């Protein structure tokens, strides 16, 4: 070992190992792995809530104003013996969107996987700032609590849509919602604070705590994606926080930032929101893509095609994501001359993403593809995400958006991207890293059953949603039967709802698998998938401090099927030549 390397090792190694108490270990822990599981737990609980809300909305859309089975217990004035009114529907839409984006996708894809994997993948003992990390999860827990409480305050929960457009959101009298909406804003503010702390940690860890030999271009793509996502989040969230404070002031102090009567402008919020909002969807997307890339390489037994190209393409897409925001506002009253420039940048973003998608497909070419459950979910993410990508072109084309804006075509589009990435991508990651997280393997057959049911019913629910949208059905309406031109679409709405119910039931095999494997699954070895990245060199599950010795990295993360090698994988920290590596294994 060179001196420089030794110095670096010495810097990382001193770490006190003592047996912490139960509380320190599972609740107030600074261990990145425990924090990851805390985020995962909260995220999965919220996913259950968000999923049940989706079910309630879908029931209402198929059979408006009839009692929703299982929900007769909900008291008035939310529901009337299980049937809902439009106020409650609006609250459900708002909270479903908010929960799924900020309390499921972010904590699971970014926080849980990022926390668990970044230190392991860079060969560090923990995050750069473990206490900040603990603070971030507790601030997130507080945000969760505030959001939860917001359901139960007088006036009910926020109901101005997850985008919270003023003036609707700026004055109590427009919605009748008082503290529900204030708390919603507060919960978002806390959530942003939490993820800013997380982002700082991710970046610092990935840049400063890399193991000896692990240069930036030897980092797994998952780490790159997390870093780019963290930067996008940090650069975009500031304007929204300012916007949210102004909104809160309009609500609480009677200012008029967004109210024309007092000289304000409702469109100001839309610009601030979407300047954040579009990068934000990539903040969710990129970690999901990172998960899929890792998995596709391992189960094709091939290097990721165009590793550096993917990094550059993602950075380009990230930069472009800051100049597309007005594609949400083509018909919002902005100067019509502004629309086409934003339309062009939006559609151009398809080029870097096409690069990433094609590179993923090219990775499969001449591979030795092993269809394990994680691989199935990764491929499912890819296959379904492509549909979300192409429908984005419709929305991005300003003239077409005149018609499809605020219809179910848009709802179908963003569920193909968000559901694919969050749910399918999240499951891919969970099936893949579960052995590392919990030291046991998930059951493969149950996993495959779960996969096929999910894919079938997801598509059966969301493909027809495009047709409903093309038929003109508006989003965020509580009762399509109030419109004559939507009557012919009602059979589709019923079909979608039935599929959604089946989709939700299809998650039962996962729950069974998860709980059962946690206690009785097959013990996982260190590297069950024969993967190269550093996390697989640590024990399963890794102890506090992660590695027995500081790993030293000799190569990139995807040296699979290297010519002349006996085995088809070559861990990053394996010093020897390919042949000797075979002997070691």
């Amino acid at each position: 070992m060179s001196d420089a390397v030794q110095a670096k090792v010495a810097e990382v190694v001193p770490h006190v190992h003592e047996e912490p108490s139960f509380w320190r270990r599972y609740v107030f822990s600074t261990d990145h792995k425990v924090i990851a599981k805390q985020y995962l737990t909260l995220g999965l609980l919220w996913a259950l809530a968000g999923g049940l809300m989706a079910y309630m909305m879908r029931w209402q859309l198929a059979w408006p104003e009839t009692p929703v089975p299982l929900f007769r217990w909900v008291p008035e004035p939310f529901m009337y013996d299980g049937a809902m009114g439009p106020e409650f529907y609006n609250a459900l839409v708002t909270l479903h969107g908010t929960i799924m984006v900020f309390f499921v996708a972010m904590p699971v894809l970014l926080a849980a996987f990022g926390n668990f994997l970044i230190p392991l993948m860079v060969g560090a003992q923990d995050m750069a700032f473990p206490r900040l990390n603990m603070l971030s999860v507790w601030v997130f827990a507080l945000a969760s609590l505030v959001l939860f409480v917001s359901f139960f305050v007088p006036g009910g929960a926020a109901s101005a849509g997850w985008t919270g457009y003023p003036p609707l959101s700026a004055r109590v009298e427009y919605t009748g919602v008082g503290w529900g909406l204030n708390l919603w804003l507060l919960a978002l503010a806390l959530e942003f604070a939490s993820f800013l702390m997380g982002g700082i940690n991710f970046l610092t860890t990935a840049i400063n705590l890399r193991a000896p030999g692990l240069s930036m271009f030897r980092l797994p793509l998952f780490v790159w994606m997390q870093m780019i996502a963290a930067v996008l989040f940090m650069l975009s969230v500031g304007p929204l926080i300012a916007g949210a404070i102004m909104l809160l002031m309009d609500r609480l102090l009677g200012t008029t930032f967004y109210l024309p009567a007092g000289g304000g402008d409702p469109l100001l919020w839309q610009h601030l929101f979407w300047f954040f909002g579009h990068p934000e969807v990539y903040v969710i997307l990129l970690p999901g893509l990172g998960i899929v890339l890792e998995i596709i390489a391992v189960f094709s037994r091939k290097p990721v095609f165009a590793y550096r190209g993917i990094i550059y393409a993602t950075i380009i897409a990230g930069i472009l994501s800051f100049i597309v925001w007005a594609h949400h506002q083509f018909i919002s009253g902005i100067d019509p001359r502004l629309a086409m420039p934003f339309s062009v940048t939006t559609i151009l973003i398809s080029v870097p993403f096409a690069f990433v998608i094609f590179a993923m497909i090219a990775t499969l070419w001449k591979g030795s593809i092993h269809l394990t459950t994680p691989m199935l979910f990764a491929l499912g993410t890819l296959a379904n995400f492509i549909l979300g990508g192409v429908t984005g072109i419709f929305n991005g084309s300003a003239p077409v958006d005149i018609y499809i804006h605020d219809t179910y075509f848009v709802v179908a589009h963003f569920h193909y991207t968000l559901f694919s990435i969050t749910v399918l991508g999240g499951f891919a990651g969970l099936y893949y890293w579960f052995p590392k997280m919990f030291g046991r393997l998930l059951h493969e057959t149950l996993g495959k059953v779960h996969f096929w049911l999910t894919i079938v019913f997801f598509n059966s629910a969301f493909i027809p949603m495009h047709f409903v949208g093309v038929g003109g059905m508006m989003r965020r309406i509580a009762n399509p039967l109030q419109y004559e031109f939507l009557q012919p679409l009602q059979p589709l709405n019923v079909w979608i709802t039935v599929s959604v119910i089946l989709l939700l039931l299809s998650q039962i095999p996962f729950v069974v698998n998860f709980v059962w494997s946690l206690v009785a699954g097959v013990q996982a070895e260190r590297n069950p998938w024969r993967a190269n990245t550093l996390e697989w060199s640590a024990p399963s599950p890794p102890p506090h401090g992660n590695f027995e010795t500081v790993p030293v990295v000799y190569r990139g993360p995807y040296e699979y099927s290297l010519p002349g090698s006996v085995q088809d994988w070559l861990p990053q920290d394996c010093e020897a030549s390919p042949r000797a590596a075979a002997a070691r294994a």
Partner: protein
Amino acid sequence: MLSWLPENVSTYGADIDSLFTLIYYITGIAFLLAEGLLLLFLLLYRRRQGHGATYVAGDRLGELAWVLVPCALVLALDLWIDARGAETWAKVKGSAPPADVRVRVVGKQFNWEVFYPGPDGVWDTADDRRLENELHVPVGKVVEVLLESQDVIHSFFLPHLRLKQDAVPGRKIPAWFVATKPGRYEIPCAELCGFGHSGMKGWLTVHTSEEYSAWVQRQWATFPHAPATAPAVPRLARTQDATQTKERDSSDSSLFLERRRRERG
């Protein structure tokens, strides 16, 4: 999928639909190619005993070309869509043709108020007329709609005419259309605007020119020279014209009264 589009009854609707169709075919083919290739690779390169993977890092230009050339193709198609889009946008949202009929539409929780300038063609004069949720226009004429809002953001949506435009408080936003077929068409609100958003809708009646003249005759014969702002007139106008006015008209009751009334009912 395209067959789900409601019948188009406006001039530029055909342009929007044809752009929609173009994008549908371009992205449809690209989608099928990508998915087909994905599936093909999965079938061809399934793990088999004795067949390892081939090491291809895709870092040399010769290999990268396999991805870069399709990307160039995507770029070309994008530019094509953009060019067609710019053309259509200019037609729909660029300079509007001179208006034959002018109306003001004011969104409010939860109705569309429609104002006509009356025979003198001048706003804020005694012959202005206000209707609730009723818009009457002649076929084949350029109709200019000036959109405003009294409270929150609404969105004026005419699905059959491929027209949608937000109505934003504090702004007057122009929109226009030429209807090509007589009939009655719904005008839903497409932007979440509160608890009555679902069901907030009006009706567009497209008349033949004779019918329209007759309608105008009736309107301005029944209520000669009544100021639009006078409280009595809208009421009369409502009972006379707005046959489709919803019972959930909250124009003159506070939202909370409204809410309670609805809860009791």
